[in-house]
């Protein structure tokens, strides 16, 4: 490299340095100019909020419009514009426009916007552009809740508790339950009962059912009653089961009303009382429960049947046999019918004790193949299949009991009955 070139090189370097210096200066100037615009936008926001508070909505909206022109990124202005279209105080209400503005602010982490966006997806309001999506609602409620926004946590708990959204993890449901959301408490109880995502733990299940039941949650009362009835997680106590079922029944819970009818006719935990049984069956039947209707029909028939037509048994009220299920289901041939052709409607006599058995068998099922049962529940096939299999299983269990086997051995015996059906579908 000659001296001349070296010199020229140095000169170019000096020029680049000067340019960089000027560039750095202009970058600084740009930063300051943007800051000024931002400050002005913040001023307009302040003015707009003031107008909004004074219910001068037109003026408020104009301020927000000017502000967003100066700086399109201010989340608070985006939120206020979203609110304008959400509440419709200036422009006609428009969920889609509100959603777009809220989303901009929500993505920047403004928890109020996240919550309101969640509410829009929650879809409890009407208006054009409504788009109900519980999963989306949960996503935004979750974000707001993570920032300590209590209202959002509460809404999220509600969605989780009702099973409208799938919980992200077990801890999420637990948190909602611990915050006292009865829906989440019942949900958590179910998870423990079925061992979904946690180790199966009936004591925990009963604990959370009780929390929710004490808050007057009818589903939880039904489940807590079942816990007492089967002695799952609590000492077996038919009377206590009846207490909780009655509470749920009085709250209008159809299943609980029907179940209460069943225990009154069986005299489990309550004095046997056909009048009471009929009363609760009628309640459930009025709400359209087909099992209750069938039970009522059976009771009527039994009452109108002369004693001599009933195999000469003096106390042949169908429900009187409940205490010894082996009496109700004796014919192997008859049972076969049920299994081979589950579509065949089940005779009311057998129907009476079904809910309790169903619950029991269903739980056995879930324990082994929860995924399959879930899909069955969704497709609505569960009831038919459960009934047929339940009757068969109960018979096998009782046979086993009569042969002096313990419940575990009995459970093993029913496995072959349960598995083929799962595997075939």
């Amino acid at each position: 490299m000659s001296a001349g070139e070296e010199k020229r090189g140095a000169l170019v370097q000096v020029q680049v340095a000067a340019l960089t210096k000027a560039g750095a200066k202009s970058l600084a100037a740009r930063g300051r100019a943007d800051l000024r615009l931002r400050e002005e936008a913040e001023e307009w926001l302040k003015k707009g909020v003031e107008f909004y508070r004074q219910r001068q909505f037109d003026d408020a909206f104009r301020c927000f419009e000017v502000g967003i022109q100066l700086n399109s990124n201010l989340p608070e202005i985006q939120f206020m514009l979203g609110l304008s279209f959400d509440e419709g105080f200036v422009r006609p209400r428009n969920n889609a426009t509100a959603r777009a503005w809220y989303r901009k602010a929500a993505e920047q982490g403004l928890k109020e916007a996240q919550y309101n966006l969640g509410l829009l997806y929650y879809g409890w309001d009407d208006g054009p552009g409504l788009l109900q999506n519980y999963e989306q609602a949960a996503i935004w409620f979750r974000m707001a809740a993570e920032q300590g926004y209590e209202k959002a946590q509460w809404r999220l708990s509600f969605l989780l508790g009702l099973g409208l959204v799938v919980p992200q993890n077990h801890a999420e449901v637990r948190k909602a339950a611990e915050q006292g959301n009865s829906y989440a408490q019942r949900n958590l109880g179910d998870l423990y009962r079925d061992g979904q995502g946690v180790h199966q733990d009936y004591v925990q299940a009963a604990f959370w059912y009780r929390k929710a039941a004490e808050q007057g949650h009818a589903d939880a009362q039904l489940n807590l009653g079942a816990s007492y009835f089967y002695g799952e997680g609590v000492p077996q106590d038919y009377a206590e089961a009846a207490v909780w079922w009655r509470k749920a029944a009085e709250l209008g819970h159809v299943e609980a009303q029907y179940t209460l009818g069943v225990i009154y006719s069986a005299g489990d935990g309550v004095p046997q009382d056909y009048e009471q049984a009929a009363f609760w069956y009628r309640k459930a039947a009025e709400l359209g429960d087909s099992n209750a209707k069938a039970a009522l029909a059976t009771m009527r028939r039994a009452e109108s049947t002369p004693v001599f037509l009933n195999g000469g048994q003096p106390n042949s009220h169908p429900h009187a046999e409940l205490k010894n299920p082996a009496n109700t289901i004796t014919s192997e041939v008859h049972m076969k019918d049920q299994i081979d052709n589950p579509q065949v409607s089940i005779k009311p006599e057998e129907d009476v004790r079904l809910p309790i058995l169903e619950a029991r068998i269903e739980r056995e099922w879930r324990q082994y193949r929860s995924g399959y049962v879930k899909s069955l529940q969704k497709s609505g096939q569960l009831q038919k299949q459960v009934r047929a299999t339940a009757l068969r299983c109960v018979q096998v269990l009782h046979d086993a009991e009569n042969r002096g086997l313990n419940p575990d051995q009995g459970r093993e015996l029913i496995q072959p009955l349960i598995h083929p059906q799962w595997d075939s579908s």
Partner: protein
Amino acid sequence: MNSEIVRHLSPEEKELARKRQELAILQAELTDRELVLANLRAELAAFEGHYLREVGVLYAELDDWNAKIAELVSEAEGSEEAKSAAAEARGQAEESYAAAHGEAAKAADFSPSPELKKLFREVVKQIHPDNASDEADRAVRNRLMAEANLAYRRGGEDALRRILEEYKSSPESVKGDSVGADLVRVLRQINRIVKRLAQIEAEAAELASSEIALLMAKVETATAGGRNLLAEMKQDVLRRIDLARNEYEDQSSKMRQR
């Protein structure tokens, strides 16, 4: 009384003593002012580096997207106007890139230790060119002072010590002359220091009113109020980059459809 051993100072000597006193005061002030200026320069350079690395690079990225969009438009329209707009946008993007990734952006954070400050003060006091006795001395001091400024900026305590040593051992620092010559030298020194003080004031004022200093003041005020302004600016530009990127993708997918 032994009056004859009392030496009466000549008017020249009296003047020299007075001027030496004046010079000493000015030298102390000069040291202070040089230190203030050096700190201001270093702080601004450090802030500028920080700003360029945090926000400047984002502006450069934003400009790049804007240039890409302008180029797409120019490709689609083909008009002279669109072409020159694209060229201008590209030029802007290149300038921003050079600035955001240039030497200024490499400036490290500046937080001098008390020891470093003390050392630098000593260097200024000893070596300041305006305290030079003659032109040769002045040349040496100029060189050493430039090195010292750089060393201070980079926090090099050892380098500052070496500079002090080098000056003390150099023959130029040896002084001694007649009263008349001393007086002339002192007067010249006073003159130089007064000029330098004025220069320092001018430079400090210019620095304080520069864009980067105004920005720094704003950021510092916000920090005192609990706000992280740089982070906010960053968010703002990032968001604009997102929008520009989306626009570019929209435009280019439209182009492909044609």
